[in-house]
């Protein structure tokens, strides 16, 4: 029931989000219509980082409490996170081509985001190479905790280093009010969608773990 409500909220918010991006928000003078990619890139980037924070929390709690629900949360957040990190990289490249004239630049923010994607990949590689479920959960939790070091690097990359990436205009008041409102709606819409997907993924993971346990019990009989 809760998921159905969340699904409807997500759908309505997403429709409103499209209205805000394509009708309400004005076209930026310098970049033109391509600037609207920004309303997709920022929420995707935010969710990529949020996922890693959830992976960190889930991993720490799993190592402390050894309860499989925390591993399910970390695993599900990592999987959802790799989807949104991939989205950030693809959408970012599609924005970079017309604005910078290249698909990819090895500048700090982009490189740190690529490293984030590789850490997510390592998380799943560690899991797939470890046969025993509890060992896989333990090893991947360590990757999740160590990998979280990259999150502040991604965030601070545009502050610490001189970079081609645009500065954090949201916090500097550099966005027109209509653009800021559209961005906030977009972040809210994608966050609700993310929560919905994450809840479903956690539920799937828990069901899979339970089925595997029951299969094991049946085999023992």
């Amino acid at each position: 029931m809760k998921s159905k409500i969340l699904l409807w909220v997500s759908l309505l918010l997403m429709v409103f989000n499209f209205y805000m991006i394509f009708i309400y928000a004005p076209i930026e003078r310098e970049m033109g219509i391509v600037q609207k990619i920004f309303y997709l890139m920022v929420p995707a980037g935010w969710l990529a980082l949020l996922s890693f924070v959830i992976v960190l929390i889930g991993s720490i709690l799993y190592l402390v409490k050894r309860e499989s629900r925390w591993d399910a949360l970390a695993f599900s957040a990592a999987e959802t996170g790799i989807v949104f990190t991939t989205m950030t990289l693809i959408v970012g490249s599609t924005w970079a081509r017309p604005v910078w004239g290249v698909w990819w630049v090895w500048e700090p923010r982009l490189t740190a985001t690529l490293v984030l994607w590789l850490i997510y990949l390592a998380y799943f590689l560690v899991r797939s190479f470890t046969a025993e479920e509890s060992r896989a959960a333990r090893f991947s939790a360590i990757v999740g905790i160590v990998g979280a070091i990259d999150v502040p690097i991604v965030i601070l990359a545009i502050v610490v280093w001189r970079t081609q990436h645009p500065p954090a205009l949201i916090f500097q008041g550099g966005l027109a009010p209509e653009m800021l409102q559209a961005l906030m709606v977009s972040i809210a819409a994608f966050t609700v969608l993310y929560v919905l997907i994450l809840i479903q993924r956690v539920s799937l993971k828990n069901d899979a773990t339970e089925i595997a346990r029951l299969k094991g019990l049946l085999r023992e009989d």
Partner: protein
Amino acid sequence: MESSGYLWTAFSLAWALVFGYVLLLINRQRGLRHDIEALKATLKEKEGRK
């Protein structure tokens, strides 16, 4: 490619990724349902033997 082309490419690819992932989850859910049915059948079989 024109600016609008990049915009549509970005939105199409992003949504294709989200829909692709959701479809993958639906597929996995179907697989789990199949496993549950198999488990139920095995349990019935075992109860029948007793």
